[in-house]
């Protein structure tokens, strides 16, 4: 399980990996806002915004095939909804290339724009999480005054996610070793319920043991935090570069195409 996830790229050694997580988070959010605020039916402009996160991904050494494959995996919902646009907006817009011209409906323009924005914001998200260790991201969130309870919860979830998913893999394996064809809705449901139920019981028992471990190390209900990261020159350089890119894109490039 742990091999398929972005986690492993987050341990890399590039310029971007060493940036402070708060800086990266801020940049990702701002950039996403900029992309989302682009007009709704202008796909070409959006493509220009893809360059920046693409650059980060490439220079940080994150494999593009991996990123693209994951984007594909999470696209169905957006794809279906984006494809609904051409059904409802049939206003034709001419597309002219000198002598050659054809027509595209407003609906298709919207559709392409939504999809383009989706890809670009996904690339941005990958640029963030691919270069930042989850624990560092959490520390950044804590600094941003996220509630203690939530930060602790995220840490625990992250930690035990892989443990439980491994258990499920084993359970599913056990099921496929002993069940060779569909058994009808009711029985299938019962089996699935039993598997989930036993997983649940194991989870509760695990949590009870964790509770003992926490108590034995003196936990009394308050969370103490360790992290104190500093903003260094590297972060300032990145921020300036980021600002420059934003001004370039939103202040100049955007207007060329509008």
């Amino acid at each position, binding site marked *: 399980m742990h091999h398929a996830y*972005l986690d492993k790229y987050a341990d*890399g*050694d590039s310029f971007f990996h060493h940036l402070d997580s708060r800086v990266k988070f801020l940049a990702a959010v701002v950039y*996403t806002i900029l992309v*989302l*605020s*682009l*007009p709704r039916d202008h796909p070409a402009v959006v*493509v220009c915004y*893809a*360059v920046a996160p*693409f650059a980060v991904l*490439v*220079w940080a*050494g994150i494999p593009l095939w991996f990123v693209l494959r994951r984007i594909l995996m*999470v696209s169905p*919902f*957006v794809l279906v*909804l984006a494809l*609904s*646009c051409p059904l*409802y907006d049939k206003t034709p*817009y001419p*597309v*002219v290339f000198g002598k050659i011209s054809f027509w595209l409906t407003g*609906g298709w323009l919207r559709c392409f724009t*939504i999809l383009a924005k*989706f890809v670009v*914001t996904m690339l941005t*998200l990958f640029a963030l999480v691919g270069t930042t260790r*989850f624990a560092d991201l959490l520390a950044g969130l804590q600094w941003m005054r996220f*509630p203690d*309870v*939530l930060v602790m*919860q995220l840490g*625990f*979830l992250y*930690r*035990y*996610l892989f443990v*439980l*998913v491994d258990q*499920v893999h084993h359970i*599913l394996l056990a099921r496929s070793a002993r069940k060779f064809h569909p058994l009808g809705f009711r029985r*299938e*449901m*019962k089996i*699935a*319920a*039993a598997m*989930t139920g036993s997983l649940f019981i194991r*989870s*509760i028992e*695990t*949590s*009870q043991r964790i*509770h003992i471990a*926490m*108590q034995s190390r003196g936990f009394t209900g308050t969370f103490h935090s360790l992290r104190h990261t500093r903003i260094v020159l590297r972060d300032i350089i990145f921020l300036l570069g980021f600002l420059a890119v934003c001004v370039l894109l939103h202040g100049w490039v955007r207007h060329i*195409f509008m």
Partner: protein
Amino acid sequence: MHMANELLSVPVATGAMAVAGTGLGWICKKVRQELTSEKVALMGVLGAFVFAAQMVNFQLPMMPGTSGHLIGAVFLAVMLVGPHLAAVVLSSVVIIQCLLFQDGGLLAIGCNIVNIAIVPSYVGYFVYRTIVSERKNKVRLFIAAIVACVFAAEAGSALVVVEAIISKVLLVPVGTFLATMAGVHLLVGVMEGLITVAILSYLTAVRPDLIEGMTGEGMFSRKTAILSLVVITVITAAGFSLLASSKPDGLEWSYLERPEQPDFKPLIANDDPRIKSADELHSKIALMPDYTTRGASEEHPVSAGWTSLAGIVGSMVCMGLIWLSAKLLGPTKTAA
């Protein structure tokens, strides 16, 4: 059911973030007061359980190839830990889904937290609490679970529709969108209810002591639950009627031209040069020119095909160069 960034407008996304943030903040504060290491451990592991449980799938009847699985709000909220902890657990699930699995965009997190974590937990809980009585009647428990799951799923999906419609990114008419989402989530809710009931029967047989400690009583009284449901229903009804209303909102109505009333002299005509220059200035300097106050749709004749093509090609070339540069500089060390 996860919202993507691109289906939202920036104001809606940030608005939802604010709502989610305040809501979660309040819930976390409440949770903090009664926190023990037992609860901390339980919440953490339950979050992981929700993920893991989603992987246990089974063949759905009549629909070969598709499968059903547990979503978790009602099961958690109602059965185990009450709506507050359930909301926290599910919020953490949503955040992890975004950050680790890229399911749901960065800016959509606010919407997703509201749609998937907060609203279903409370709605599911209130519905459940309303149906179930103090006597532990098993059949009632199971019915309550199914109904609660349906309501929770419907509530969440209705919010998705509302957020999408207000954002005006998609063009699907309210009616169609709502009907589709409501229909799909009816099925989803029933499925989840059935699975929840099946798991509960398994647990009652194998570990009845766990079930004893559950059923979330004592969190809210039945009266509070019913009252909350009534309030929610009233707000929802009012909200929907507003949305479905085809009248322009009050302010616009007062000064826009009204074609059906030729004698009406609008304060400012839509084609007044001042409006035009204001709009131009606004779109030039605004970070979010998309969100114009006048309902005019963007008029961008895509006649200059070359410019757009140039933009796309230019970006591709840039990316190609960047990729080349990375290759030339040598592989970056990524730790295994």
